[in-house]
């Protein structure tokens, strides 16, 4: 845990070229592919396969957003695909509407359906989402088959129109490929945007995402809605391409096909989606004889899903990139960022945190009972007590992970009692966890950038990528891990992971920092270094509320101590006085 990075040659992280210029090769490549699609002579069979692969891939991109990035399941992608397809199908035939209007309408319908499903289900656990999307898929199929006045029932819709600009199959294919390239670009870069980072954070650790200022529910709804829109878009293009659609093309079985494509290629990346889609469209064409037995294909898909999940959870592309990632993560960076600045907001009075009459009951158990805590600005305040005394519960109520049964929590003049975790973070609350909660699939830098992105952080300038990166690097350097910023979390020791979690909280420039047993599991050297770190944090005027069992650390670092036992406050005051208090001594050592 060295805090110096002097002996490593300084490499300034700058952006070599503007974003568009750096991504020019992608667009040039895409343009070439579109040109090839429009000019090469394909026979009808090849053309159909390409058309199917292109439109399916867009829907599978949707799955890579919701499942790969955000970790939420969607088993109704074929239904959303059907929304787009039927909008274009019915719109261009029965109602003689413009193709473009129908395509947009299909996407909007998929968006609305996705948003409604998401809004009603995503607050609950993942099991609910799986079941609700399956149910939704079944309902959509029922309607497609039975609402004959609208959908023409099992006969399907034929003679579907195309835009006048792309009447020939060849030019329409080129148009679809162009759309695919565009969507692919967005999905490819989504992970590095603020929304994409939030999605990954939610996937890796929902609780940590919340206390770092991410609106978990909204992020999930966005991911789900994006996935639904991409389903609708793919379906709309599909309908124009094949001119005929029927309900069986949008059944639950097709949703499973989409899922298998996504899992096979690698759910985390659009490249994986493209690989998976291509393979699962081509392989059945090569093995046509299997199609003679009904059910055999899907049975094989089902088996493949089980085997992929077990033996190749990151799919083909994930397997390929794993090796590359190992190379990347060994790369050291050296940083020439300015030292970390902390400028805690000060809108309230003398007290940063005022807790009055706080209670948390679990059924009959009073885990926290009528506790008052006042944390003075600029100091280190410790909350101690024997095991099971309600310390961590108190912290969880303070950060909004539990709802208070009664009582009031005022943070820097703002009543936060009923706020969800992300709004408390926005109000200036930062915290770490006793059992470290980092975003494990990300680098140290990305973890800390999410901290820096806290809504209400005034120290990130314009809030652009460069400012965020600089702030995050400064925070990592502050805890002594700047040079290892680009490494994945898994390559850090336990003690270093704690420091990254603290850096993540510091990058957010909180008004009050809650530390939940930061010394737990550290060896004695690491504890000393932690103590030094706490001093350096306090020296910048940041108020800390710390829970710990290490009495040396607590008595040396904290000026003020509150003691809990059996959920009640038994002592409160200046450190030395509290530690000599007879009730405290008997709570820790017992009485005769």
């Amino acid at each position, binding site marked *: 845990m060295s805090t110096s990075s002097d002996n490593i040659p300084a490499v300034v992280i700058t952006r070599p070229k503007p974003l568009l210029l750096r991504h020019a090769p992608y667009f040039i490549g895409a343009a070439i592919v579109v040109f090839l699609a429009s000019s090469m002579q394909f026979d009808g069979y090849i053309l159909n396969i390409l058309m199917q692969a292109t439109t399916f891939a867009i829907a599978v991109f949707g799955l890579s957003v919701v499942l790969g990035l955000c970790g939420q399941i969607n088993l109704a992608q074929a239904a959303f695909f059907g929304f787009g397809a039927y909008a274009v199908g019915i719109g261009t035939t029965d109602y003689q509407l413009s193709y473009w209007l129908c395509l947009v309408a299909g996407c909007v319908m998929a968006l609305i359906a996705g948003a409604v499903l998401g809004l*009603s289900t995503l607050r609950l656990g*993942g099991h609910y989402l799986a079941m609700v999307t399956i149910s939704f898929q079944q309902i959509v199929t029922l309607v497609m088959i039975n609402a004959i006045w609208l959908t023409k029932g099992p006969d399907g819709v034929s003679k579907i129109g195309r835009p006048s600009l792309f009447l020939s199959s060849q030019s329409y294919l080129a148009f679809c490929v162009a759309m695919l390239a565009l969507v692919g670009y967005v999905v490819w870069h989504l992970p590095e945007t603020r929304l994409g980072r939030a999605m990954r954070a939610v996937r890796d650790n929902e609780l940590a995402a919340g206390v770092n200022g991410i609106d978990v529910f909204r992020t999930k709804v966005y991911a789900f809605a994006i996935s639904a829109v991409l389903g609708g878009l793919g379906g709309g293009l599909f309908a124009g391409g094949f001119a005929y659609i029927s309900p069986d093309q949008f059944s639950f079985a097709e949703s499973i096909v989409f899922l298998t494509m996504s899992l096979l290629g690698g759910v985390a990346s659009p490249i994986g989606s493209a690989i998976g889609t291509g393979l699962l469209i081509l392989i059945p064409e090569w093995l046509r004889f299997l199609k003679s037995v009904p059910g055999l294909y899907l049975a094989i898909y089902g088996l493949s899903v089980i085997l992929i999940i077990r033996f190749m959870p990151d799919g083909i592309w994930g397997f390929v990139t794993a090796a590359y990632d190992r190379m990347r993560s060994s790369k050291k960076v050296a940083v020439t960022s300015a030292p970390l600045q902390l400028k805690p907001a000060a809108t309230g009075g003398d007290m940063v945190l005022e807790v009055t009459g706080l209670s948390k009951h679990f059924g009959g158990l009073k885990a926290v009972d009528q506790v008052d805590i006042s944390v003075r600005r600029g100091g280190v305040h410790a909350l101690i007590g024997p095991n099971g005394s309600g310390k961590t519960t108190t912290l969880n109520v303070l950060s909004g992970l539990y709802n208070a049964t009664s009582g009031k929590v005022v943070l820097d003049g703002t009543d936060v009692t009923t706020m969800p975790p992300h709004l408390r973070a926005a109000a200036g609350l930062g915290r770490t966890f006793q059992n470290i909660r980092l975003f494990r699939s990300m680098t140290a830098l990305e973890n800390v950038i999410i901290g820096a992105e806290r809504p209400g952080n005034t120290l990130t300038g314009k809030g652009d990528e460069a400012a965020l990166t600089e702030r995050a690097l400064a925070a990592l350097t502050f805890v002594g891990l700047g040079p290892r910023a680009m490494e994945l979390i898994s390559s850090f020791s336990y003690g270093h992971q704690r420091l990254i979690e603290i850096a993540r909280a510091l990058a957010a420039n909180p008004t009050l920092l809650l530390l939940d047993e930061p010394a737990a599991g550290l060896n004695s050297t690491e504890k000393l270094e932690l103590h030094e770190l706490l001093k350096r944090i306090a020296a910048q005027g940041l108020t800390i509320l710390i829970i710990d069992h290490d009495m040396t650390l607590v008595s040396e670092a904290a000026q003020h101590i509150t003691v809990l036992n059996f959920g009640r406050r038994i002592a409160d005051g200046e450190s030395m006085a509290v530690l000599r208090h007879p009730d405290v001594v008997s709570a820790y050592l017992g009485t005769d």
Partner: protein
Amino acid sequence: MDLVLQLLFTGIGIGAVYALVALGFVLIFRATNVVNFAQGEFSMVAAYLMVVCAVDLELPYWLSFIIALAGMAVIGVIFNLGVYYPLRHRTYLPVIIATIGASILMANGVLALYGPQPQVLPGWFDTPGIQLGPVYLDSQYLLIIVVTIALVIFNYWFFEHTMIGKKLQATSQDKEMASLLGISVSTMIMVTFIYSAVLGGLAGLLVAPILFVSIQMGSTIALKAFAATIIGGFGDVTGAIIGGLALGIIETFGAAYISVPYKDGFAFLVLVLFLVFRPQGIFGERVAEKA
């Protein structure tokens, strides 16, 4: 009024089947913390085993019944070893996806082996039913209701009053502590899978003479049973049973008074209403993840 009573009887009969499958869901959920999306396929596979034994091979009905249930016990073992156990240390998402894969594999495997033609399975009794005042009591529905009541009682006795039942409960509440007390957690999980496969199979065997035996029956039953568990309160045994019965009644009345083709849609409608207005269900309580 006569029609109402008749529908009520039918609804309770169908609801009892949902309740049995829902019970299987809940038991696996409590033991392993994952939802088994292939639970409904256990019913379907058992029904097909029954068709093979009783119809195709013309074995006695009771023998076929026993063979089918024994077959389900074997499938429970295979399912645990092939699908759940290798993934037990992963998060819930891979496990869910694997059980969905298993569900697709079972449904389409049976389709590939047996063909798409729905099969007819005769009922247990030769007498079709009895007339009780204004209500006609179909013998198969009666059997379902009686067996369900018996199973609920057995289930209570098994979990509360036998050693193995208590071990199962201990495992579902705290795996680490259970293993420290010398309970073999992997054996207990295996027992749970066998028990719920047999339970799901039993539900399939009971309902098969009422419906056609088809590939789709598994997913249809599973959806209803899952809706039942949410309505009753996720993870709650009593809730699963009450939820199943309620759903059967709602669906029967919906089909009679509103629309037959959309019969399977009512479960979804009720499900969404509950998710929006009372996601914790009638009995259940959601437990937050510990920080």
